[in-house]
């Protein structure tokens, strides 16, 4: 069913992606929202911990726009720690000694799951812009097929931040019987005009790079690194709060005593953003960035349910916990509260906490003890209701009261 080190076709300089890969949609193709069909597509995923005998302890983690499946082990390309090492691991909030944690690379991604940089079997060339436009629902449908393949009927928990949270909401809406508890973090039920606007800046930066070659850069042996780096720089600003930028950099200069009266990176914040841009292009595919940002822009859960968000959750048996952060201006508390109000309107079982943090949208990835305490309490409470025996305790000091 799964193999290690499946082949990646992204180009001669891309090593095979480690971890599990499975080919899905071979018998029945996956029908996408756009009407296109995908058959025989690959999903790459990582797992942590082990599935219990009655297959009731599985947790699906949905990653964000530029995340991937390597949430709790070193990234194969950058060597950096997994993006959710704060949360996932033995004795941590998502305790891998207790739960079976699955994290797949999303459809359209570029870490082994089928996306625009993979080979289109019909042409033998990279998909490029021939890849069909995908949606958040399509990502979730592909994940559901993965769970079928793994023999997991119901997830104990689905969680994720940002775009991961959008997938969590879709999961609860599309497959309520397959989700026991849902923990969407720092997210929204739809993309706002401001969200779309920022994404459009990023896409235009990529497409304005001559090396993008109309989306055909892989065949041309080029990479639109400059455009993708600018897209990343603009987006990165939205992940941080004004206060965190101020505290981190202020107006401090980069290795110099005074400004140079030129356009080098005089300020530390410039140098930092350039670094963010340069390191990002090493691991991310520009067309993937276009497709995934588009999927987020198209996301509007209420629109699919007659314009009433509550209809997405009518009679839901799922236990929800929604989390927002005070300084997150990308998916602010109001957007998260809108989800809570919709859940209240159908008398769903929901918790909602706004965590005080100055770290902006990225707070969900960082060391935020209060956030960890709250979600740990929610998960423990849900586990008790699910009848998952054994309890998990955080380290002393992080322990729930």
């Amino acid at each position, binding site marked *: 069913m799964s193999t290690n080190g499946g082949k990646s076709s992204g180009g001669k300089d891309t090593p095979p992606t480690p971890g599990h890969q499975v080919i899905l949609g071979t018998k029945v193709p996956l029908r996408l929202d756009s009407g296109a069909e995908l058959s025989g597509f690959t999903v790459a995923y990582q797992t942590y911990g082990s599935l219990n005998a009655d297959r009731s302890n599985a947790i699906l983690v949905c990653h964000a726009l530029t995340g991937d499946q390597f949430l709790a082990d070193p990234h194969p390309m950058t060597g950096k720690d997994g993006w959710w090492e704060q949360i996932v691991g033995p004795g941590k909030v998502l305790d891998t000694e207790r739960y079976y944690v699955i994290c797949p690379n999303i459809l359209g991604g570029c870490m082994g799951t089928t996306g625009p940089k993979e080979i289109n079997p019909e042409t033998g060339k990279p998909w490029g812009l021939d890849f069909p436009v995908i949606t958040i629902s399509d990502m979730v449908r592909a994940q559901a097929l993965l769970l079928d393949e793994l023999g997991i009927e119901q997830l104990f928990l689905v969680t994720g931040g940002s775009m991961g949270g959008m997938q969590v909401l879709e999961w609860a809406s599309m497959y309520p019987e397959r989700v026991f508890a849902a923990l969407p973090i720092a997210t929204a039920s739809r993309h706002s005009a401001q969200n779309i606007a920022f994404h459009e800046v990023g896409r235009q930066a990529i497409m304005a790079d001559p090396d993008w070659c109309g989306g055909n850069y892989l065949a041309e042996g080029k990479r639109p690194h400059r455009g993708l780096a600018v897209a990343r720089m603009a987006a990165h600003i939205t992940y941080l709060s004004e206060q965190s930028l101020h505290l981190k950099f202020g107006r401090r200069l980069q290795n110099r005593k005074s400004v140079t009266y030129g356009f080098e990176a005089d300020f530390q914040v410039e140098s930092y953003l350039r670094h963010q841009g340069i390191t990002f292009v090493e691991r991310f595919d520009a067309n993937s960035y276009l497709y995934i940002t588009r999927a987020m822009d198209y996301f509007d859960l209420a629109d699919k349910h007659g314009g009433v968000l509550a209809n997405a959750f009518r009679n839901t048996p799922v236990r929800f916990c929604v989390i927002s952060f005070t300084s997150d201006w990308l998916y602010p508390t109001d957007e998260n509260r809108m989800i809570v109000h919709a859940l209240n309107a*159908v008398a769903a079982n*929901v918790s909602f*906490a*706004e*965590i005080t943090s100055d770290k902006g949208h990225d707070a969900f990835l960082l060391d935020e003890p209060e956030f960890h305490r709250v979600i740990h*309490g929610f998960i423990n409470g849900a586990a*008790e209701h699910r009848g998952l025996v054994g309890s998990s305790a955080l380290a002393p000091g992080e322990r729930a*009261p």
Partner: protein
Amino acid sequence: MTPESRRKAIRVDLQLISDMIEPGSRVLDVGCGAGTLLDYLVHFKQVDGRGIELSTEGVNACVSAGLSVIQGDADTDLKDYPDHAFDFVVLSQTLQAMHRPREVLEHLLRIGRRAVVSFPNFGHWRVRWELGVNGRMPVSEALPYQWYDTPNIHFCTIKDFVVLCTELGITIEKSLSLDHKGGMRRIGNNLFFANLFGGQGVFLLRKG
């Protein structure tokens, strides 16, 4: 919390409220604080319990303890809930802090088939003494705030509350008063007595 400490932790007024709630029912606790009552109801009355709490500290404590609680404001957020979503809606020591207590009370009985409401009695003789004889706003163990920093903006007496229930067509199924030593009395027809000596009132209400 161990079951033992839960039993010990609950205050007399919370015990009275708990006694009014049927085991296994659906309960919404409005202004649930750190979740003491909700936790007790969930574990000892097996209710399907939810809470709303304004303070971040309260919400975080509740959710950390595995309770289903949302950060929200009863003055604005009750309107989202559908009719008869709960068997009981509890408003414990919170009515006096509402901007629109009358609307809140109406929402309680729209959302819940029954409501349990408790509040400090501003008609208690000590309150009257402080105001009438000493000419000062009362500050006590039960009402520990100075006038300038109190969250309590809509005090009422037990009698005021009974009058409002009549105006809104609310039936009082049970009414109890508690004195400061924890002594409980049925209010019944002794409204004058209860209004003078009751430290707080605890009411079980239904619409119609």
